[in-house]
C-alpha cells in the first residue's frame, strides 16, 4: 500500500492522538497530592543535608526540621516568642543566666522522655557539632540542670537574641540517645508534630511525613500527611504549583506572573535587602571608598524607585537602610535618607576631591546582571565608573573573607539586631572583611549587646551610624513571593521567605 502525503499526515495525527488518549487513561495520576485537605504538599528549594538538629539552618532551611522537631520556644508568625517545649523563661538581673522551665508531658518519637537532661544534651551537642548556626550559642558558657524540668543557660556575655535563637536551630530538640549518631543524619528522631516516613521518602526528590500519634499540641498538627517535594528549579516549582502537584512554593517575580495567571495566591514578605556593600571603608585597596562623601555620592546616584519598577517588576520597597522592618532597628527617617539626587552626588564628589577619579570593581552576581548594568549606568551619570567583574563562584564566602572584593552587589538577610550586626557591621562580621570600626560604633554595638529587651531600639543608633556613614548603598527590600493554591491557608512568617511549618492550615 502506498500512502500519499495527505493520507500519511492524517495517519500520523491519528496515531499521535491515539497515543495521547492511551496515556491519558491515567490522567492526573501524579496530581492527586494535596487534593485531600488532610494532606499538604510543599515545593521546597533543596533537600536538607543532615537531619541532625545541630545541622539545621535558618529560613527555608529550617522548615523541614520543624516537622520533626519541636523547639524550646515557638516563634509566632509576627515574630512574637511563645512557649513550646519551654513553658516559661526568665533572665537574672545581669542578663547572664536564662532559667528555662520545661514541659513534662513530652516524649520523643523513639519513646524517650523530654526533660531537663535531654534539653541540656541537645544544647551541649549544638555547641560542639560545628553546624552552620553554631554561633547562635557562641555566648553560652554552660548549661546546668536545676531539676527535672528546669535548666539554667549560663552566658559568658549577654546575648539579646538568645531567646530568638531558642526558637530557631539552637532550640530544636532531638532524642538524646540519637544525638551524634550516624542514624539521625538520615532519620530525624524528635518530638515534633510529624514523623518521617523513610520508606516513602527519596533523597533529593521528596520527604514524606505522617502525623505523630499522641502529639502533645494538636493545634500545631494540622495535617495527617506532609510531603516536601524538592524542586530546585524555579520553572519546575511553578509547573508543579499550577498543575496542582504542590500546594505552595516560593517563586520569583517572573514565574510569579505565570502562577498569578493560574489564580494562585501570593503572600509577599520582605526578608532580604539588596544593594551595594562598600566594604573597603578605610581605602586599603580603593582609596576613594575611604571618603565618606564618595560613599554618600554613590547613594545619591541611584533612582531606587525606577530601578525597582523596571528591573524587579515593582516587587519590593526602596530603602536607604540595611536593617529590616521586623528587627526593631528600622526607622522611618532613614527609609529615604538618600534621595535620588545626581546633582548632589556630583557636588559631593567634587568636595571629596575624587571627582572623575572613582572606579569601583564589583563581582557579577548571577541573575543580577541587568540590575548591575542599570547601576553602572546611573553611577556613570554622576561620574563614577562601576566595573562588573567575573561572576562570583563557590569560593565566594572565602573570597569575601580574604578581602578580594572592595565592594559588591548582593542580597542579604535582614535578621534580629545582633544577628544583623554580626553579619554586616561588627568586626566579627563576614561582610565587614576589612574590619572597619570606630570607638563610637563599638560603643553603640556594645549597647545593643547588653541592651536586653531594648536591643532593637538601641540598634537604631547602629543603623543610623552606618546609614550616615554610607557603609552600604542599599537599594530596596526585596519581596519574597510565596504562592499557594486555594486548598491551603498560609500565614507569612516574619523574617522568613518560607513560612514556618505551623503556618499552614486547610482552607475551609
Amino acid at each position, binding site marked *: 500500500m502506498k500512502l500519499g502525503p495527505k493520507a500519511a499526515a492524517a495517519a500520523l495525527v491519528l496515531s499521535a492522538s491515539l497515543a495521547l488518549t492511551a*496515556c491519558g487513561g491515567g490522567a492526573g495520576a501524579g496530581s492527586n497530592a494535596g487534593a485531600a485537605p488532610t494532606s499538604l504538599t510543599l515545593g521546597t528549594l533543596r533537600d536538607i543535608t543532615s537531619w541532625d538538629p545541630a545541622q539545621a539552618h535558618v529560613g527555608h532551611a529550617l522548615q523541614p526540621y520543624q516537622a520533626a522537631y519541636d523547639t524550646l520556644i515557638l516563634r509566632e508568625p509576627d515574630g512574637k516568642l511563645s512557649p513550646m517545649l519551654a513553658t516559661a523563661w526568665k533572665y537574672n538581673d545581669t542578663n547572664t543566666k536564662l532559667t528555662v522551665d520545661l514541659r513534662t508531658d513530652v516524649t520523643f518519637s523513639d519513646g524517650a522522655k523530654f526533660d531537663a537532661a535531654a534539653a541540656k544534651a541537645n544544647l551541649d551537642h549544638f555547641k560542639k557539632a560545628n553546624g552552620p548556626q553554631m554561633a547562635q550559642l557562641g555566648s553560652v558558657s554552660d548549661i546546668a540542670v536545676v531539676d527535672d524540668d528546669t535548666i539554667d543557660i549560663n552566658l559568658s556575655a549577654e546575648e539579646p537574641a538568645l531567646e530568638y535563637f531558642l526558637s530557631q536551630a539552637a532550640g530544636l530538640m532531638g532524642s538524646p540517645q540519637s544525638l551524634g549518631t550516624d542514624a539521625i543524619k538520615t532519620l530525624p528522631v524528635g518530638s515534633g508534630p510529624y514523623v518521617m516516613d523513610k520508606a516513602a521518602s*527519596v533523597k533529593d526528590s521528596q520527604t514524606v511525613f505522617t502525623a505523630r500519634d499522641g502529639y502533645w499540641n494538636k493545634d500545631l498538627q494540622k495535617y495527617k500527611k506532609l510531603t516536601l517535594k524538592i524542586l530546585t528549579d524555579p520553572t*519546575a516549582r511553578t509547573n*508543579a504549583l499550577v498543575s496542582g502537584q504542590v500546594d505552595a512554593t516560593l517563586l520569583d517575580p517572573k514565574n510569579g506572573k505565570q502562577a498569578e495567571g493560574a489564580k494562585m495566591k501570593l503572600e509577599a514578605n520582605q526578608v532580604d535587602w539588596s544593594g551595594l556593600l562598600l566594604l573597603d571603608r578605610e581605602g586599603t585597596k580603593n582609596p576613594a571608598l575611604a571618603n565618606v562623601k564618595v560613599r554618600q555620592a554613590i547613594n545619591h546616584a541611584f533612582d531606587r524607585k525606577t530601578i525597582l519598577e523596571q528591573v524587579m517588576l515593582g516587587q519590593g520597597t526602596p530603602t536607604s537602610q540595611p536593617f529590616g522592618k521586623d528587627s526593631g532597628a528600622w526607622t522611618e527617617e532613614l527609609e529615604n535618607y538618600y534621595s535620588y539626587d545626581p546633582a548632589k552626588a556630583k557636588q559631593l564628589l567634587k568636595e571629596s576631591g575624587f571627582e572623575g577619579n572613582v572606579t569601583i570593581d564589583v563581582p557579577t552576581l548571577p541573575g543580577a546582571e541587568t540590575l548591575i548594568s542599570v547601576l553602572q549606568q546611573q553611577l556613570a551619570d554622576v561620574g563614577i565608573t562601576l566595573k562588573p567583574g567575573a561572576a562570583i563562584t563557590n569560593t565566594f564566602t572565602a573570597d569575601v573573607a580574604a578581602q578580594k572584593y572592595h565592594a559588591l552587589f548582593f542580597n542579604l538577610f535582614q535578621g534580629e539586631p545582633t544577628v544583623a550586626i554580626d553579619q554586616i557591621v561588627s568586626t566579627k562580621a*563576614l561582610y565587614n572583611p576589612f574590619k572597619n570600626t570606630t570607638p563610637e560604633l563599638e560603643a553603640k554595638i556594645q549597647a545593643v549587646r547588653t541592651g536586653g529587651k531594648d536591643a532593637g531600639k538601641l540598634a537604631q543608633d547602629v543603623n543610623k551610624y552606618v546609614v550616615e556613614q554610607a557603609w552600604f548603598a542599599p537599594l530596596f527590600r526585596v519581596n519574597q513571593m510565596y504562592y499557594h493554591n486555594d486548598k491551603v491557608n498560609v500565614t507569612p512568617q516574619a523574617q522568613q521567605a518560607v513560612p514556618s511549618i505551623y503556618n499552614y492550615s486547610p482552607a475551609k
Partner: protein
Amino acid sequence: MIKFIAKRLGSGLVVLFVVSALTFTLLYTSSGSIARNILGDQATPEQVALKEQELGLDQPLVTRYFAWLADALSGNLGASWFTSEPVASSLATRIPVTMTMVFTAMILIAICAALIGVAAAVKRGWVDRVVQVGAIVGDSIPGYVIGVFLVTLLAIQLGFFPATSTISPEVGPEAWVYSMTLPVIALLINGVTGGAQQIRSAVIKQLERDYVRTLRSRGIGEREILFKHVLRSAAPAGLTVLSLQLIGMLGGVVIIEQIFALPGMGPLAVTATGQSDLPVVMGVVMYTVVVVIVVNLLVDILNGWLNPKVRVS
C-alpha cells in the same frame, strides 16, 4: 576479538585514571574554601579551620588524591562533604533514573531514526524533503525548549502527565512510566531528526555504490539488496552517530532532569559541581567516563559483528 576487547578495556582504564587525576587537580584549587561554604556566612574562622581539618582539606594535593584513589580502588568513593551521604549510594539511587531515561530514549531513537532515515533514502521525493526539513527544525530546537513546551501543553493544560516527577516508592511502576514519558520525548526528538538525517545520507551513499548496481544487474531484488547489503554497510555510520548522540545525551539529560525535577544524575552533578563537593563530583565524573568507555566498546563490538570489514581492519 577477545584481544581487541582487552585492549579497549586497558585503554579505558588509562583514560579513567588520567581523567580522575585531572578532575581532582582542577577541583583541588577551589576546594580550599569549601569548609566556609558548608558552614555558611556566619561561621567563625575557628569553625572553618576545624571543618577543614575534619575533611582533610589541610593535606597536600598528592596525599589527598592517592588517598582517594586507594579508597576508590577498594570500592569506597567516599561521602559527600555536604550531606555525608556515601557517594556510592547517591550514585546507586540516581543512575537507574538517568539510565532508564537515556536508554529508553536511545532505543526509540535507534528504531525511529533508522525507519525514517531508510524510508527517506529509499523513497526520496516528499518523504525525503520532510526528513530534511525535520532535521533542520529538530536540530534548531533545544531539548529543554521542547521539554518546557511539553510540560505546558500536556501536563499543565491537558493534565495527561505529571508536570514534575512523581517517582517514589509509595507509587507503583506506572508512575515511572508517567514521569518518564515527557522527559523521554523531550530527549528523543533531536536525536530522531538528527539520526534520521545521518542514516539517510549513509544509506544513499551505499545505494550509489558500484556493488549495488552490480547486484541489481544480476537481478537481485531491491529488498534483498537493501536489507542484506546496503544496511550492513551503512550500519557503522549509523551506530557511530547513535553512540555520539548517547554520549551527548548525558549532558542534555542534566537540563531535562532539572525541568522535570527527576532525581537523576543531572541535579546531583549540578549541585555537587556548584558546591565543589569533591567526592560527589569525582563519583559523577567516574560514572560518565565509564559510560562513555562502555558505549564506545559496545559500538565497536557491534560494528565488528555487523561488518566483517571492520574486524579485519
